[in-house]
């Protein structure tokens, strides 16, 4: 490589971090420093230092001092991943009067010292990584961060307990919230439950006040029976389209008296709220405490919509609130932040055909059991077999149905152990039946959970450690005749057992919403291959997403129990409030722009932008990028045949220079 010595290269400082021994254990830091000073001197490096912890205040001061005293124009810190400390070192530069974007981090910890073992080889690679960063930083341009005002309103998607909590937190802080829910009422899965573990509080008793508060809060606008159909814009300035499905009930007139429901002559199986275990009318409110109180007409099942006659509801409505002419309605709202609390679906137990759900009458799912044990449910809280009257004498509860199984879902659904223990307690309490629990591992890690396990043990529930092989009605002898037989290896006894029972409860796991992929595209959040939304950081940023301004809470990111969902709802709200209070948001100035002189008007870039940030000016026959919409991916930069598009932060010059730097040793060897 021909180094043009004497040319006016910017003055670069290189700082190599030991990171305690995290780096120096595998990389000869001293050697890297020496080499940087000597070999990269020709490239413009005027100073190279190493230090135990560059990120410490002393380390940062070192850099600040050099910038001021040596007149550094570029800084390279060879340390950890930029995702950890890029902001730290940019801050140091800024304090010393250097544009923060003239500082680069070279990752020699995550990409070198932690993943390699041979010290000599690792040291060589560290040098290459540093050289790449030096060559790149020379081509960096000073940039100004972008500031965008934040719209103070917030959209919360999903009216389960996580969404309700988030909405209340923000509303109570004095800001407006739109709470969108696709079912007729808010409340989510929690509204279906009877008791909650481990305290056995009645779910309705603790949820209803929250629902009521959300429904009547002056700062919360409920959009139930509604779905988000389109999202445009970016943090601080989202434009969201919401489809309001027709209720066929004029909510301005309806008083929620319930006469229409009473008079409606048609009953259908309620697959949503009653989980298929009970019936509802065709005009209905899902449950007594529903918020809002207005009913909905289920048009596909309504006799009037299907046959043109009936109208019983209309006839009897005292306020003339029934309106068969209602149509879908689209409303557009402006918000600054969005919280996704879209929740989960339940695993379809029929997929585990060896457990017989759907084939064997007295095999129930956990959600069916919740409804059955609920005093407001289809059996009035009586625990009975499918015939609706017989109390079971023996009940088997099977854990991990559809979870921890490569044939279905790999993950642990986290709530099933506790839920099953709760069922065992309820069955005992209400029927006195013999209860078996079949588990692989008992997982009771949260507050007061293991104590609940102890309590259920004490109550005499029989625990069998083994994944149930099958539930069958094929008896082998008299004793099994007419029963459901649970066949399992009792792994602690080392023997196969066949246990005849009257009722089986399958503790079914949680799954991502069936439409999670579409939702993730709609809001531009990441979705893992199994369908759960991806957090910005699983530990340190669990309620943010990679998309600024879009938060997530509750089971949308994975299975959670009620306390965790509530905590996440509140945490997401805190994140949003933090943004709102800042009044404006700082964006990375990574944007593409088109040189109008070079643009040939070929329009190749136009179709490449998924954010519709590229406009084509018909009159001048050139394209232009709207910096407010550009997200900085750089696809158009790479595609422009005229080389007219450049991208700040990741320009061609920067990347080509980095390649040169990374391969410097190879070329020196030629």
């Amino acid at each position, binding site marked *: 490589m021909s180094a043009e010595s004497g040319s006016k290269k910017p003055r670069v400082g290189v700082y190599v971090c030991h990171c305690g021994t995290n780096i120096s254990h595998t990389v000869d830091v001293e050697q890297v420093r020496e080499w940087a000073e000597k070999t990269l001197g020709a490239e413009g490096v005027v100073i190279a230092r190493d230090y135990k912890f560059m990120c410490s205040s002393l380390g940062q001061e070192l850099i600040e001092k050099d910038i001021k005293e040596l007149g550094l124009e570029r800084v390279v810190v060879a340390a950890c991943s930029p995702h950890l400390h890029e902001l730290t070192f940019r801050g140091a530069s800024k304090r010393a009067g250097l544009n923060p974007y003239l500082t680069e981090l070279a990752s020699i910890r995550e990409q070198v010292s932690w993943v390699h073992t041979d010290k000599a080889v690792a040291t060589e690679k560290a040098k290459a990584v540093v050289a790449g960063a030096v060559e790149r930083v020379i081509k960096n341009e000073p940039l100004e961060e972008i500031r965008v005002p934040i719209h103070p309103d917030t959209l919360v998607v999903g009216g389960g307990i996580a969404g309700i909590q988030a909405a209340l937190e923000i509303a109570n802080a004095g800001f407006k919230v739109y709470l969108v829910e696709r079912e007729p009422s808010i409340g989510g899965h929690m509204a279906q439950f009877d008791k909650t573990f481990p305290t056995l509080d009645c779910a309705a008793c603790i949820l209803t006040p929250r629902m009521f508060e959300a429904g009547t809060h002056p700062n919360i606008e409920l959009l139930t029976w509604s779905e988000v159909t389109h999202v445009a814009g970016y943090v601080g300035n989202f434009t969201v389209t919401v489809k309001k499905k027709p209720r066929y009930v004029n909510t301005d007139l309806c008083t929620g008296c319930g006469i229409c429901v009473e008079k409606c002559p048609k009953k259908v199986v309620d697959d949503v709220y009653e989980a298929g275990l009970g019936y509802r009318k065709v005009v209905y409110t899902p449950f007594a405490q529903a918020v809002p109180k207005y009913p909905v007409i289920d048009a596909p099942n309504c006799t009037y919509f299907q046959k043109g006659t009936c109208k019983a509801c209309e006839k009897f409505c005292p306020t003339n609130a029934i309106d068969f002419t209602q149509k879908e309605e689209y409303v557009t709202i402006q918000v600054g932040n969005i919280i996704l609390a879209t929740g989960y679906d339940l695993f379809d137990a029929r997929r585990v*055909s*060896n457990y017989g759900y759907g*084939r064997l009458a007295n095999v129930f799912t956990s959600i069916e059991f919740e409804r059955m044990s609920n005093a407001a449910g289809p059996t009035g809280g009586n625990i009975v077999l499918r015939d609706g009257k017989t109390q079971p004498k023996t009940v088997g509860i099977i854990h991990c149905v559809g979870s921890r199984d490569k044939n279905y879902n790999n993950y642990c659904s986290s709530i099933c152990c506790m839920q099953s223990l709760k069922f065992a307690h309820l069955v005992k309490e209400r029927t006195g039946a013999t209860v078996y629990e079949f588990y692989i591992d008992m997982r009771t890690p949260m507050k007061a959970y293991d104590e609940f396990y102890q309590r259920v043990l004490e109550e005499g529930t029989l625990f069998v450690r083994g994944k149930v092989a*099958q539930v*069958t*009605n*094929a*008896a*082998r*002898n008299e*004793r099994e005749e007419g029963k459901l037989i649970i066949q399992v290896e009792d792994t602690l006894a080392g*023997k*196969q*057992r*066949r*246990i*005849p029972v009257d009722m089986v409860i399958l503790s079914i796991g949680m799954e991502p919403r069936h439409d999670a992929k579409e939702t993730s595209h709609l809001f531009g959040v990441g979705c893992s291959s199994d369908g759960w939304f991806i957090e910005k950081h699983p530990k340190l940023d669990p309620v943010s997403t990679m998309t600024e301004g879009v938060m997530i809470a509750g089971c949308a990111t994975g299975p959670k129990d009620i306390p965790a969902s509530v905590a996440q709802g509140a945490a997401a709200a805190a994140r949003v409030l933090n943004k709102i209070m800042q009044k404006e948001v700082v964006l990375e100035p990574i944007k593409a722009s088109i040189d109008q002189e070079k643009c040939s008007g070929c329009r190749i870039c136009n179709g490449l932008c998924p954010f519709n940030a590229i406009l084509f000016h018909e009159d001048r026959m050139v394209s232009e990028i709207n910096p407010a919409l550009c997200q900085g991916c750089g696809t158009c930069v790479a595609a422009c045949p005229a080389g007219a598009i450049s991208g700040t932060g990741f320009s061609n010059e920067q990347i080509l220079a980095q390649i040169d730097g990374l391969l410097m040793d190879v070329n020196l060897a030629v």
Partner: protein
Amino acid sequence: MSDYLFYPGCSMESSAKAYYDSLMEIAEPLGINLKEIEDWNCCGATEYVGINLIPAYSLIARNLALAAKMKNGTKTVVAPCSACYLNLAKADYYMAERPALGEKVNQALEAGGLHYDPGTLDIRHILDIIINDIGLDVLKAKVVKPLKGLRVAPYLGCMVPRPDYYHRWSDPEHPIELVEVLKAIGAEVIDFPRATTCCGGHMTQIGPETAYELIRRLISSAEKYKADIMVTVCPMCQMNIDAYQSETNRYFGTHYHMPIVFFTQLIGLALGFPPEKLGFGTEITSTKAALARIGVEIPEPVEEGAPRRKKEEGLPMPPRLLKNVKGKPRNTEEAEQ
């Protein structure tokens, strides 16, 4: 007519001759053209793999290599025997899943001038062909004598729906394919809970007491559901339940009489073929009474299969020759009481 490469398997020439004969009869009207793999050899059943892995898979793969040479237009190999079907399919699957196995097997094959690349062929079972290629509509259209009033227990056995690495079946434990075919020919199909449980396999030879228990579970269950006859797709299942039924009865002191035939035999009846052309009459447990219900007369069997010592009402006499004799149904829950 659809062309298929055909791997009959050893039992089709002997113990499951009825399967072979009936399949040959119904193939033509259903439009199935079976081209037998030239000079095929035994698949090794469940025995060879338990002795020596590479020779066992080489033995299977010789058939695949021979079939691949003939494939000409069709890449589908049809096997009617469950064990053959599974062995051929597993060899193809494992040779790909474990390249080291594929490599070694091909080294062996090359000693015989052969070679097989996994994935070259589709290995399918005859039931899969009938339901998915020919289709229920075609089958229904060909039925001239629906088996109305015949209560059948659909018995698929183990090795067709499991392990099903290629996901060809509706369910590994409660698949619907055989049920659908039997319904299509007009039979009354019972909801047989043991449709895919084990018949004992080779245990009839090496551990008969184990096998008898498994056979007992099957026939008692079929009888409980008032089946007239069991219907299978597997020569081993047919053999165990048919030929070992009297021994099972003797062992437990029971009097079950549950005939079992191949599904192709019943399809043949429904398509109007005379029973003697379909191999009826070769079973040990007579089908006479069962088929009389639908007005089919079976040629007089040489040997009556039902237990002859009918007097045994009291305690059963266990056969003295067997080890660990237990004269009553097993109850694994005994210890629990």
